């Protein structure tokens, strides 16, 4: 972590302190002389990595309240720069502290313009800091911290006067609504307890008169006055500072104040530099007075810190993300182990069940396929028994019908197949049906008439049709009497006239 160092500048000298956890360690005092400036440069070189804050307590200060129109961005910045130039011409060490907006329709903004009006008192030190390329976080004034001190001590800050003693001066600050709107430095010729007490008393009365004259205060109001003094001096100060109708004194023990603001290096006397330095280190004001050129090193330091913070945050986020993923992975591995154990148990159960099966050289899927196929093949098994019995019944009712040949085939007969030697073979079977081709003749004797032959044939065909499952087709009749076929005859009795051939095809559903 970057070390922090605080520089306190008064009209005579600059004092350097190292700040660590509320402790202020003095590291040197430098006066505005060439040899001291060189010593200061060496000090900076030795502590180049530190971050610096400069607190100025100079008599040459200016405070002006200004009102500007409601503006934002570049316009506001340009207007503030112009106002600072108007009020504090010749000094770059100025800043504007926002005091809020007026509650009027125009919403004007109130600003407190603050500046160190003697640049020569500050510039040598800032140049040294700049030359050393150290990080200067900001240039602040003691007046800026007055309101903060009262707030930290739990005192009302709406309207108050704060008297503090630093080096060989007394600072008097008028605080309105937490902000110092007027501050001045008076020298302290007598640094004894009695001298400080007398100075507090007299300066409070003088400042009150001055502020009334400047119309910053009403003559009839009672102004709270807070005076900070060493515990040993509080009695004397309280005795010297007698309340009046215009001034109500409240003496603050500087050690009590140190405890309240977290300062562990208690002041040895009534001087309050350490209190203000601690306030600056703990919570610096947002506004500071140094131009950007002197804060270049600080900006570079911020960029460096930003880069390192970016890397660090990235690494930290990555570590968190990786930890989450590793935790997930651990959970997944646990789950996988549980699943594997469960799988092993099920495998064992599976083997236990299958061990009870008769052992085969094929797996269950193949067994299922083979047996299913065999069942389908068995369903295709047909025998001509039923067909022959059906024919036998029909022939029993027609004694004059003689059968010469029966062609039975499983399945529907589409076309007769021709076998070897010209023999007709049954066609391939169509599942679920059988086909019979019946070849025969009607034998009624030579005296029979055509009508008698046809009647006998029709009777036989009808007996075949009794079974509704039969689809009977007469392929050839004993006599061709259809209009589309030739019909021959003569008065001479032909040989074999008593025998008339026919062909019948029967298609029927068959049971397996």
């Amino acid at each position, binding site marked *: 972590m970057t070390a922090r160092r605080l520089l306190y500048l008064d009209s005579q000298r600059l004092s350097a302190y190292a700040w660590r956890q509320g402790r202020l360690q003095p590291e040197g005092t430098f006066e505005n002389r060439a040899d001291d400036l060189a010593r200061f440069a060496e000090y900076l070189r030795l502590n180049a990595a530190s971050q610096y804050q400069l607190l100025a307590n100079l008599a040459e200060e200016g405070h002006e309240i200004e009102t500007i129109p409601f503006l934002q961005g570049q316009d506001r910045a340009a207007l503030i720069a112009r106002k600072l130039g108007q009020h504090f011409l010749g000094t770059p060490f100025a800043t504007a502290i926002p005091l809020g907006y007026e509650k009027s329709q125009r919403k004007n903004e109130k600003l407190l313009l603050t500046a160190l009006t003697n640049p020569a008192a500050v510039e040598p030190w800032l140049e040294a800091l700049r030359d050393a390329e150290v990080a200067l976080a900001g240039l602040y004034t003691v007046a800026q911290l007055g309101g903060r001190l009262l707030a930290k001590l739990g005192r009302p800050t709406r309207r108050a006067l704060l008297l503090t003693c630093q080096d060989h001066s007394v600072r008097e600050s008028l605080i309105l609504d937490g902000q110092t709107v007027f501050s001045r430095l008076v020298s302290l010729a007598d640094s004894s307890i009695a001298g400080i007490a007398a100075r507090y008393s007299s300066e409070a009365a003088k400042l009150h008169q001055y502020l009334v004259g400047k119309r910053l205060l009403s003559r009839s109001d009672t102004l709270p006055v807070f005076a900070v003094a060493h515990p040993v001096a509080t009695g004397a100060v309280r005795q010297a500072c007698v309340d009046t109708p215009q001034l109500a004194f409240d003496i603050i023990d500087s050690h009590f104040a140190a405890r309240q603001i977290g300062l562990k290096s208690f002041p040895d006397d009534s001087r309050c530099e350490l209190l203000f330095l601690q306030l600056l280190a703990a919570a610096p004001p947002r506004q500071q007075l140094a131009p*950007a050129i002197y804060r*270049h090193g600080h*900006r*570079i330091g911020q*960029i*460096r810190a930003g*880069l390192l913070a*970016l*890397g*660090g945050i*990235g*690494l930290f986020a*990555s*570590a968190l*993300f*990786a930890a989450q*993923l*590793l935790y997930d*992975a*651990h959970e*997944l591995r646990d*789950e*996988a182990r549980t*699943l594997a154990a469960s*799988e092993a148990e*099920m495998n064992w*159960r*599976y083997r236990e*069940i*299958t061990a009870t*099966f*008769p052992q*085969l050289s*094929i797996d*269950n899927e*193949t*067994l299922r*396929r*083979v*047996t299913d*196929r*065999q069942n389908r*093949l068995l369903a295709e*098994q047909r*025998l*001509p*028994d039923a067909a022959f019995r059906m024919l036998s019944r029909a022939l029993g009712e027609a004694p004059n019908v003689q*059968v*010469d*040949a*029966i*062609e*039975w*085939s499983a399945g529907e007969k589409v076309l007769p197949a021709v*076998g070897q030697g010209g*023999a007709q*073979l*049954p*066609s391939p*079977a169509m599942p679920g049906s059988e086909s019979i081709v019946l070849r025969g003749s009607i034998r009624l004797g030579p005296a029979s008439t055509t009508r008698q032959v046809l009647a006998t044939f029709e009777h036989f065909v009808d007996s075949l049709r009794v079974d509704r499952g039969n689809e009977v087709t007469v392929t050839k009749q004993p006599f061709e009497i259809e209009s589309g076929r030739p019909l021959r005859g003569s008065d001479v009795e032909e040989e074999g006239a008593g025998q008339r051939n026919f062909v019948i095809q029967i298609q029927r559903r068959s049971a397996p």
Partner: protein
Amino acid sequence: MTFERRDFARLRWPFLLALVMLAAAAAGIWWSLKFERVARTERDAALQTKTQIEQRLRQVRNEEQDIKTRTQQFHAMEQAGIVGPERRLDWTEQLRDLQRSLRLPGMTYEFGPQTPIEGPTGGGPVFHASPLRVQLRLLHEEDLLNFLPRLQREASALVLVRGCKVSRLVPSGADGANLAAECAMDWVTLRRSAGARQP
């Protein structure tokens, strides 16, 4: 703020350090993602295997009786001689024995070449059929109705009768035969496809 040349030199190491940290962060994320992905793949594989065995177990429990029945059926096929390479010598002997048993006056037959009756089964056993055309001389039609069921019962194959033609012999034969019959059938056996082990 204006940057000067020396500022870049002052920012070089923090920049490099930040870069290294970000690279380490990226590498850490990449490695942990990979680690997590591998673990997830292992879990998914274990889940898939477990689901499969669970399904097999459920199936085998549900089909325990079915498998036992089918196994018995398969054993019956084995005992009937349907499973394995066809035994044509046995078949011819069975045909002759049947002819003698039924006292059929005459019989001629011809087995055709064996062909598979189903497509490839990935190395599993395949049903094959050997066509048979048999010509019989019969005293009467009852001989045929006795011959065919006994053949189906006794043959060491699954016999599918495709068709029969029965015709009258005029005049009757000297052997007393009155009818001639010609039947076509398929003798079906189960064997592994060529090159595969027999079941």
